[in-house]
């Protein structure tokens, strides 16, 4: 199970990467995609939508389960991964790169700093997580 050291994490298994232009890319973790199994549908947020930290901004569905996506920080949606409409399996295959879900312009950068580090995220996963 991969937990990249340069990302930030939430207890709901989302990751966030701060980009050079001040926006932040968001997706679900390797652990989350493994728990869900084959992902067959991703509901993406509308561009320009403003979302508060902790609010649902989309849905991922595997064969067995429906799971809400929660935005790690407040801000405005500036991009979304439209490739997932045709190829939702990218979330399974490449959760931290090609399987990214949306990009947000954070309204309060301090919220990014408050997110979990990779070590903190790993520590709160179940002991038998693979």
């Amino acid at each position: 199970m991969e937990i990249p050291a340069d990302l930030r994490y939430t207890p709901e298994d989302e990751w966030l990467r701060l980009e050079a232009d001040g926006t932040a890319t968001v997706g679900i973790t390797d652990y989350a995609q493994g728990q869900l199994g084959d992902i067959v549908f991703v509901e993406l947020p509308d561009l320009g939508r403003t979302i508060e930290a902790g609010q649902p901004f989309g849905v991922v569905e595997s064969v067995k389960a429906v799971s809400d996506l929660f935005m790690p920080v407040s801000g405005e949606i500036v991009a979304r991964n439209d490739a997932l409409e045709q190829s939702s399996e990218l979330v399974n295959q490449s959760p931290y790169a090609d399987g990214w879900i949306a990009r947000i312009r954070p309204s309060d950068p301090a919220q990014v700093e408050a997110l979990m580090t990779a070590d903190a995220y790993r520590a709160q996963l179940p002991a038998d997580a693979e």
Partner: protein
Amino acid sequence: MAERLRILPLREAHRAAGARFAPFAGWDMPLQYAGIIEEHRAVRERAGVFDVSHMGRVELRGADVGARLRSITTANVASLEPGKSRYSLYCTEQGGIADDIIAYRLEADRWLIVHNADNAAADAERVRTVLGDAMTDIGLETVMLAVQGPEAAEALRATLGLDLESVPRHGCVELDWRGGRVFFGRTGYTGEDGGECVTDPATGRLLWDALLEAGVAPIGLGARDTLRLEAALPLHGHDISPATNPYEAGLGWAVGLKDGADFTGREALVALSERPQRRRLSCLRLLDRGVPRADYPVVDPSHSEAGAIAVLTSGAFSPSLEVGISMAYLPALLSDVGTHLAVDIRGRAIPAQVVARPFYQRRS
């Protein structure tokens, strides 16, 4: 209050094969191994083995079993020849479906009945009421492995030494294999050819290992559900239940009224058979992206103010068709193939169309 889950006799074999477990009908069952979609495709394109030991199994012995069993089954099982099986229902006095079953007649005076896991205890009681000591519940002392797929015949030949062509469709045989006795019925729940084996746990473990060694993929309950739904095979407790009758479920063919035998629910079923059904279990295919799931509402887009016209009884992403597929009891007037409807998925009306049953049919 959590009941302790029952553990499959072959649990260690499943663990070794990489199973992820989940509770189902009181059993801790393998949900998936390699992944539901990969397993689904393995069964459609090659062959897969399922441990379905959670299903109820009772053995019946006696010369008059057929006649006594006939008093609780909708199908005329009494006319079954040895070496054959028949799909049947148990109904309530009101004509509701208490369970769907398969009765195998192994010999003139020996039968095996397979029940759904959820109903196993109630079904065994139902059978005991009419058969008494002639019934032995063998559910916990045997295992049941289903082998399904276009290459199932090859796998059965390579392992059991069984020539599938020697067993007619819905037929059954028993064979001696590696010191054990193996029952084999040419039945299944995937829409593919193959069969189902019942044997003691030790022989079952040998068979499981031999099948995996022969290249047969282990398949969990997740893919079992998508496979049966593509084949439009109803699941009791979802698509059929005591609140649905055989005619609206499209299972009128499993109700035998012509032999004149009396059986539980007969009176109600005769009445039901004589009038048109107001609703029909129908196949709905999504025309846009989305995953339909059980209990989602079905709406008529031309009368959306009327609200839900039905709710889905089953729904899933179809790995073979790569679209959402589902079943629902649609009002008869809106159940013709080609009718355009919509499924309400989280407040969005996703267009759907009534299609012919089943969604998927194997090339034969």
